[in-house]
């Protein structure tokens, strides 16, 4: 297992967020070091997706501070598009652009945001497609691939932008059981290479294998924030225990 380096890549301090009257996040603080892999879990509606989207400013929060690689996300002066370009994100439903070929999906961000030349972008795209095992599919449209293939493309797309860290929001929960592993395998490899990752997931096998820390959320609060061994050994909160027992039985 990797070591946990020490300089902070993502730092959240007392983040709170409301939708109108309804408080989705309450006072959430945590810290992800460079090279660290964090798995976030918790019941549905507990605010996991919202939390992770606060990291690259896809959701605005009303209180607290989020700092990514030294830049404050909430600061109105921050150039958000530029920050986001270097924070890779992978969604539950892949969110490939259906009207573009796989190659175009992988190059458009490089060309329009990073201002790379078309040739350079295509070369990079080809290299990363090969890496996720999908070189053959470059000319197809997303609708022509299986879910597992689409999610691997989505990971490659994020990697094309040379991200300094990656966010995953339940990347396997929309997949057929057979396809979950082909995606998890890519993620395990990424983790082993030392990519900083924050990953919402219920795949406890994956968490066991690569996570340095596990965060457990309930009702908008971070209830547990423990190392993997502590978490799977003796999770301290009752709620987390109940949750684990439900997820792991049968």
């Amino acid at each position, binding site marked *: 297992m990797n070591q946990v380096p020490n300089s902070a890549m993502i730092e959240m301090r007392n983040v709170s967020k409301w939708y109108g009257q309804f408080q989705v996040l309450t006072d959430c603080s945590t810290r992800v070091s460079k090279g660290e892999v964090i798995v976030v879990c918790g019941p549905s509606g507990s605010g996991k997706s919202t939390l992770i989207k606060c990291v690259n400013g*896809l959701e605005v929060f009303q209180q607290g501070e989020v700092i990514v690689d030294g830049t404050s996300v909430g600061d109105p002066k921050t150039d958000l*598009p530029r920050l*986001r*370009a270097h924070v890779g994100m992978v*969604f539950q439903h892949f*969110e490939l*652009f259906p009207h573009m070929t796989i190659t175009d999906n992988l190059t458009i*961000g490089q060309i329009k*945001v990073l201002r790379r030349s078309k040739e350079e972008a295509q070369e990079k795209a080809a290299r990363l497609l090969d890496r996720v095992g999908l070189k053959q599919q470059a000319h197809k449209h997303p*609708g022509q691939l299986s879910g597992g293939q689409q999610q691997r493309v989505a990971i490659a797309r994020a990697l094309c932008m040379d991200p300094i860290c990656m966010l995953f929001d339940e990347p396997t929960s929309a997949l057929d059981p057979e396809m979950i592993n082909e995606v998890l395998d890519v993620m395990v490899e990424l983790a082993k290479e030392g990519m900083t990752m924050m990953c919402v997931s219920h795949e406890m096998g994956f968490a066991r294998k690569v996570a340095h820390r596990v965060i457990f959320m309930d009702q908008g609060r971070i209830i547990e924030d423990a190392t993997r061994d502590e978490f799977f050994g003796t999770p301290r909160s009752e709620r987390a225990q109940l949750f684990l027992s439900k997820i792991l039985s049968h």
Partner: protein
Amino acid sequence: MHGDFDFSVLVDSLPFLWTGLQFTLKLTAVAMLGGIALGTLLALARLSPIAPLARAASWYVNIMRSIPLVMVILWFFLVIPLITGKPMGAENSALVTFTLFEAAFYCEIMRAGIQSVSRGQVAAGYAMGFTYGQNMRLVILPQAFRNMLPVLLTQTIVLFQDTSLVYAIGAKDLLKAAEVAGKNYNRPVEMVIFAALIYFVMCYSLSFVVKRLQQRFAFKR
């Protein structure tokens, strides 16, 4: 007049009908392209977080959608020259009126189209580092347009039929041409039946295209 239709006048009046049909087609094309362009801008305004802009756009759309087209045509034709002091002519007036009027309808379609693009897609675009403009242009509008293509075309069929209402200002479209020919040869029934046939064939062909598109989309998704 049972059974004594005289369709020979149709041949004599073909030049009449052809000029009328030309104008009908031109009006449809201009109003469709202009209407979609303007309608898309209106839709962006309606969805914009700038409240006064959104409200202005929504007023425009709702007013246009509550008045019969004939009335709008008459209004533009009669009142605009009174205000600008510059006459516009029936055909130009029709082109302007239809573009502005149809924009309200295309706006609602494009708004639905933009909203039909999932929040996930919008988030994915931003997550890639796109600005608002880039995200609209590269991710949202192409999908909105594709999702709505059948509806846009269906509205165009409605537009094509509505061009018949320019009779109100004396611009000569297909129906008007048929009527004029009908009057000058005193064969109105034959002329109108013939016009109905032309309308039907053109609209039906277009709606056939729409159906094909819908099937292809349903298959792809």
